[in-house]
C-alpha cells in the first residue's frame, strides 16, 4: 500500500534553492477523541520526519497531534550535489516509512 509520495525536482543547478514536498499516509489519531461509549481512542501519530541529502540531515520536523492526517510537509533545501534525497518518518506503535528520490545537480 502506498505509504508516501515525495516531490523532488529531477534536476537543478548547483546552489539553487529547490522545493521539496512529501505526504505520508497516516491517520494521526490525536488521543483526544472518544468512542460512542466514551472510551478514549489512544494516540497514534507520526512523531518525527527527517530529510537526508546523501546521508546528511538537512531538515527535521517534530509532529504533534495537531498535525493533520496524511501529513504534508513542504520545505526547501540547497541543491548541493547529485544524489539521493531521502525522507524518513517514525512514530507511535513502531510506525516507520521512507521514500526517496534522485536528483541530478549540474
Amino acid at each position: 500500500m502506498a505509504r508516501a509520495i515525495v516531490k523532488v525536482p529531477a534536476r537543478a543547478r548547483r546552489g539553487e534553492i529547490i522545493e521539496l514536498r512529501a505526504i505520508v499516509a497516516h491517520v494521526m489519531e490525536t488521543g483526544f477523541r472518544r468512542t460512542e461509549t466514551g472510551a478514549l481512542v489512544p494516540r497514534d501519530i507520526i512523531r518525527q520526519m527527517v530529510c537526508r541529502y546523501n546521508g546528511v540531515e538537512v531538515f527535521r520536523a517534530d509532529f504533534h497531534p495537531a498535525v493533520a492526517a496524511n501529513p504534508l510537509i513542504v520545505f526547501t533545501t540547497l541543491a548541493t550535489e547529485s544524489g539521493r534525497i531521502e525522507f524518513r518518518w517514525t512514530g507511535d506503535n513502531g510506525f516507520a516509512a521512507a521514500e526517496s528520490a534522485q536528483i541530478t545537480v549540474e
Partner: protein
Amino acid sequence: MILRALVLLLVLCAAARAEPPPAGRRSGYEFMGPGTRAMQDDDASNPAMLWVLDGEALWRARAGASGKACADCHGDAATSMKGVAARYPAYDSARKALIDLDQRVNLCRTAQQNAPAFEPESRELLALSAFIGRQSRGMPIDIAVPGEAQPLLEAGRAAFGRRQGQLNLACTQCHDRLAGEKLAGNPIPQAHPTGYPIYRLEWQGLGSLQRRLRNCMIGVRAEPYAYGAPEFVELEYYLMWRARGMKVETPAVRP
C-alpha cells in the same frame, strides 16, 4: 445561527423546484477557499493521491481463484478506463438494473476474478474507485438515460425533492434554492458529485458519494439508506445526470 438559517429555509419552503440552469452550475470547487483548492490542484499535495497509487497497485494485482488482475483484461487503465467514471451510474440492460461504479468493480471482482467483493468504503474499493475515476479527470460527465432507465432517474429526482428527517428538509431546498448562501459559516454548494471519491477534510480521509449522502441524511436527522441500497444508486444517478457536462475532478478535495 443554524436555527435562524433553518427557520429561514422553512419559511421559504419548497414550492416549485428550480434546478440550477446548465450555465449557472458551479462545482463545489468554486465554493472552497484557495488553500483547499490548491490541495486539489496539485497531485503532490492531494492526500487522495495516496489512494490513487494504491488503486494502481490493485489494478495490477492478481486476485481470487482466477489469478487474474484487472490489467489482464483491461490493460492500461489510462486507455481502457478513460471516460468510464464519467458515465456511471449506468443502466445495465442485461441485468435490468442501475449500477454505480463501485458495484461494477465488485461485479468484476466476483464474476470475472472469482474473488470476494470489496466491502463498501473499504480502502481497496476506494483506492480502485479513485484510480479509475482519475482516468476521467477533466472529461465531461455523460450520463445516458435509456427508456428503461427513465423511471429510475425520476425516482432519484423525486428523492432529491422529498422532505425527509426530523428537520423535514428536502435536498433541493438547500442545494437548488439556497446554494451560495451560508450554513454554519460555510457556503452551501449546489451538490454536484463531480469529484468522487473525495478527500473530505471533515473525514480526514477518502470517501464515496454514498458516504457523503449518508452525512447529508444524518444532517437532516433522517435514517440514512444502507450502502448499496437501490435508493442510493437512483439518487447518485439523478445527481450525476444533473451534473452532466460538468468536468470530472476525481479525486477532489472538499471541506
